[in-house]
């Protein structure tokens, strides 16, 4: 497990290991300590912890004595660096499972806004020029839903990404109250 934690922090973790590492970190104090110490080691090596103090440095020294291979780059990274592997970007199950903000566009049926060539050339892509036809909107929403299955982004996930579909519509609340 410590090797997995080290590799994880070294940014070479197998995605399959990530969940196990996190679960272990939450449940196992020793693993939690290893996580903390490996981070400190990395930060000290990069000169990012200048105020760590003798006590923290001593803990790092102790960790290194316990597991002297911790600073060695992982075999995967060495192999990749040696081969100069450009590789082929492989979408994974994570991307295949993903849905996105676009998903709920199907529900809301907001009209798209057409942009003129002048807008695009000027980078003025936030300008509303015209509304697309209703027929296209239905087709567009279907495409957005399909597209959403392949997207991902950092964030909180869940419904918060759908805020734009619950956002206020341009209705005149004040006039309604008069």
């Amino acid at each position, binding site marked *: 497990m410590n090797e997995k934690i080290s590799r994880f922090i070294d940014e070479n973790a197998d995605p399959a290991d990530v969940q196990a590492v996190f679960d272990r970190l939450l449940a196992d104090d020793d693993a939690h300590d290893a996580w903390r110490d490996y981070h400190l080691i990395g930060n000290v090596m990069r000169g990012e912890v200048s105020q760590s103090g003798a006590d923290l440095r001593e803990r790092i020294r102790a960790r290194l004595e316990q597991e002297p291979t911790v600073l060695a780059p992982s075999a995967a990274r060495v192999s990749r660096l040696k081969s100069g592997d450009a590789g082929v*970007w492989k979408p994974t199950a994570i991307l295949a499972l993903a849905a996105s903000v676009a998903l709920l566009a199907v529900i809301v049926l907001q009209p798209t806004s057409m942009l003129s060539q002048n807008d695009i050339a000027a980078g003025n892509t936030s300008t509303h020029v015209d509304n697309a036809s209703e027929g296209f909107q239905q*087709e567009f929403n*279907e495409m*957005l839903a399909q597209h959403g299955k392949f*997207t*991902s982004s950092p964030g909180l*996930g869940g419904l918060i990404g759908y805020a734009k579909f*619950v956002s206020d519509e341009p209705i005149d*609340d004040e006039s309604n109250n008069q």
Partner: protein
Amino acid sequence: MTKQINYLRVSSAVVCMLVVGAAQAQTSMNMVDLSNVIKNITPSIINAQFSPTDWLFRTNRAATKLSFSGVFQYSHDGKTDTMQVVRRVKDDEVRERLFSLSGATREIVRDNKQIWYYSPDKSGDYRQMFEGAFPRMLPDDIERLKQNYKFTMGGTKRIANRMARRINVIPNDGYRYGYRLWADVETGLLLRSDLVDANEQMVEQQYLFISLDVDSAISDKELEAVTSKGELGWYSNDISQPGELTNSMSDSNWKLAQLPSGYQLTNYVRQTSQVDGKEVEHLIISDGLSTVSIFIKPASAAQNGEGMSRQGAVHAFRNTINDHRVTVLGEVPAKTVEFLASNVAYGG
């Protein structure tokens, strides 16, 4: 004094971690002065513990494991809307409710499998449901992303009365958007997310929390929609009949002459549209974080709306090639979809 107390509050998890570690070290290694450890617990040290990659893993973990309730602002097209979100993660069940606090009452509720949407200000009692997967936030290969994005840490600031650390995911060119993220120092939850372009100009503020309670007890009532789910009708179980996913266009008559830097064809699938029953070829182009779709289907006799269009941060470009409608769309800059659209060709 107030500042010191705040630092201690927001960093309690890290403090506990260090204190426990120090105590263990004291007993097992006989070398730690506990007061010295505490003295060294400053925000700079706490924040130095994690790289941008670590923070992204941490935010992903927090998003999938923590219950929370809060109020946030969503800004777009010069408007700002205020909304409440409540999420409960309990025994592998996730329930969530998003509720508008301004304008007419609109809300979305969801459980593990389904989403229910309610908006009374759209064509009367406009109610529809949708079933689908939920987003995964973390791309699998951040090292690969570093070819097209710069990952850096920013400073700390106070958001929703909590200390937040900024994580920058800035695109290297104008063919993709990036993110400015602010993560709660204590829990890792993202308190603010901005979509930004290569000049670090904000395209859209996706959310900014103005209040947040984490791991508070959330009752069933807080997760229930104003409108009973039982009154709602199904919209659709599935939009289209999916075909077999591949990562090759070898069976297609269409070709992509050139892709923007950093993008690759990642998936190709033939589907049947439920709108008109026609076969659609769907090409998915991705750099690992930004994704663009290209849809190719036989053109109808009368179709309009060619050119560029926009919905939120999503740009779409449509044109007709060889009696087929080609639509390129994605949450990317306009020039990306235009570039791709100009490179789709019928190859025979």
